[in-house]
């Protein structure tokens, strides 16, 4: 006797929901970062997959296994979910070879999220570097969504990449730049012949932009080196550790705090994280 799949999905957090790749966008000139737009095969799964910006999911690919990836779309975008994936390991390499129309699996949403309730009513400073911009993009699109925008104060974004060709979501960056309700600061380490925007490293740009600490929270994601040099800028601006929020990455398997792989001290990054404030991280061991 066997159980029908839909019943199993409802009861079992290890069983992925079937999805179809409906769109693939190559994000960068090096072609190793692509955004995959996935649509649920079954309507009830779309209802079930209720997520908040900052959460992640396990992507399943035939014969390859699973890979935990942050959700790059915003829940305000209906009918699909998006993941921006760098080609790196077994699963992500297979995914990069896939074509639109391919069936695969998604398990989630997993993890906590950006602390939306905590962010409400405050000025939000988003700082992103390189490929780590994905769940920040989710948060930005969530906050600027028509019905949501008034729930948040001033939105300042500092987003940097090494070169113009490595910036993600170029069309969206352009449309955000045209809006009057985001202070968007896109920078590259080094421009090229066609680049008319800002040049400079993220920490320097943050110092120049100098967002006020008043009623403000910084949400920061990027390579460790960027984080290391950017945090002192925000400390100098007077931001407390409670008001600086980041997201951790660890090797994961189950995603639900069972397999014992991604703990930092007593916390599991998959289940208790991936989002932590610096104040929370201070209480954990430095093993990540």
């Amino acid at each position: 006797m066997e159980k029908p799949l839909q019943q199993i999905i409802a009861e079992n957090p290890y069983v992925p929901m079937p999805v179809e790749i409906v769109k693939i966008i190559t994000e960068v000139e090096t072609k190793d970062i692509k955004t995959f737009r996935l649509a649920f095969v079954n309507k009830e799964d779309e209802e079930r997959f209720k997520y908040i910006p900052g959460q992640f999911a396990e992507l399943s690919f035939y014969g390859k296994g699973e890979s935990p990836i942050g959700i790059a779309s915003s829940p305000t975008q209906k009918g699909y979910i998006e993941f921006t994936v760098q080609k790196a390991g077994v699963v992500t390499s297979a995914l990069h070879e896939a074509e639109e129309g391919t069936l695969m699996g998604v398990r989630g949403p997993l993890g906590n999220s950006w602390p939306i309730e905590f962010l409400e009513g405050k000025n939000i400073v988003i700082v992103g570097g390189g490929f780590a911009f994905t769940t920040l993009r989710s948060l930005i699109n969530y906050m600027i969504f028509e019905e949501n925008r008034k729930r948040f104060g001033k939105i300042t974004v500092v987003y940097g990449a090494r070169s113009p060709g490595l910036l993600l979501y170029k069309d969206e960056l352009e449309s955000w730049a045209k809006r009057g309700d985001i202070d968007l600061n896109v920078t590259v380490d080094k421009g090229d012949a066609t680049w008319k925007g800002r040049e400079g490293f993220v920490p320097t740009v943050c110092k120049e932009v100098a967002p006020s600490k008043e009623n403000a929270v910084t949400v920061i994601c990027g390579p460790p080196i960027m984080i290391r040099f950017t945090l002192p800028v925000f400390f100098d601006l007077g931001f407390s550790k409670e008001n600086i929020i980041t997201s951790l990455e660890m090797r994961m398997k189950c995603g639900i705090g069972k397999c014992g792989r991604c703990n930092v001290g007593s916390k599991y990054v998959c289940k208790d994280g991936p989002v932590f404030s610096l104040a929370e991280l201070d209480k954990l061991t430095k093993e990540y």
Partner: protein
Amino acid sequence: MEKKLLKKDKLSGIVKKMAADKTLYAPVQDEDNVLFKVLGPGVEPLVAFANTKNAPKKVFFPHSELLVKYTRSPKGMVFAAMPADAKDVVLFGVRPCDARSFALLDMLFDQEKWKDPYYIEKRKKSAVISLACVQPPYASCFCTSVDGSPTSTQGADILLTDLGESYLVEFLTPRGEGLAAYFGEATPADAGAEAKKKEIAEKSAAAIQSKIPGRAIKPILDVSFEHPFWDTIAGKCLACGTCTYMCPTCHCFDISDEIKGDDGVRIRNWDSCMFPLFTKETSGHNPRTSQKQRWRQRLMHKFKYYVDNFDAIACVGCGRCVMSCPVNIDIRKIVTDISKL
């Protein structure tokens, strides 16, 4: 709950009757070892043994377990239905330390927010008949130092205690009472039997000579993550992972996919925090690059992190890791040394 007395010579027949009706695991002699395995027809379940070499956790959390089945269609991955629910099983002759391991694993696998249906399903369909240790089985046993005892009922559905001529049969849970019909020949236990059990329990507990400050090191561990002590513990560790595979409470696992033609399975396998690859990320970054860090993780997980999360020590004091470590690393010594930091 109900307590009965059963003449000792009746027990073997009862166990064999259960084994005929449903899948029953029991301690059996297997060449030089006593192993916990399915009791086959004509095989005698052991009652006089120290403990099984392998931990009975495998009944609920097998070495290798199917999680998901799928096939390949021309368009890609198609998830398949799964086999039906687990069957009823009986675990006979589980030592109280190992029965406690089930209670500890329940805390993790049966959490409020995330439930592990594979574990829970098997656990729910099982009955655990525990066999009290009337004498300390091994010199390496230290259950009394980690909240346990040779007559602990935690995690068990029935506890049998050898009173000399008879077993005291304590039906502890509805699941245990579900097996009461098999004990039809047992008679109601009197106050004398209870008193005798109490005496035996005290004697057995007192006979556990090996002591460690199991709970006492928690406040020390809270502030000792960076202590130089950790540099001294893992020097001879081979990272073989034997301690974690023998451990009744270790539950870390890996998930991997296997395919043959157009059919695929996703399985989970026991994994070990002792292995360098356990935490190695695709980027090459590894939060735990040394065996020192991995040993610290194993000890912290059992004596601090589990206490933080569940107010329980994730060690039952069975001593299997002490006996099986090929280079004689002894967790009892490490815990004792930590208490002196």
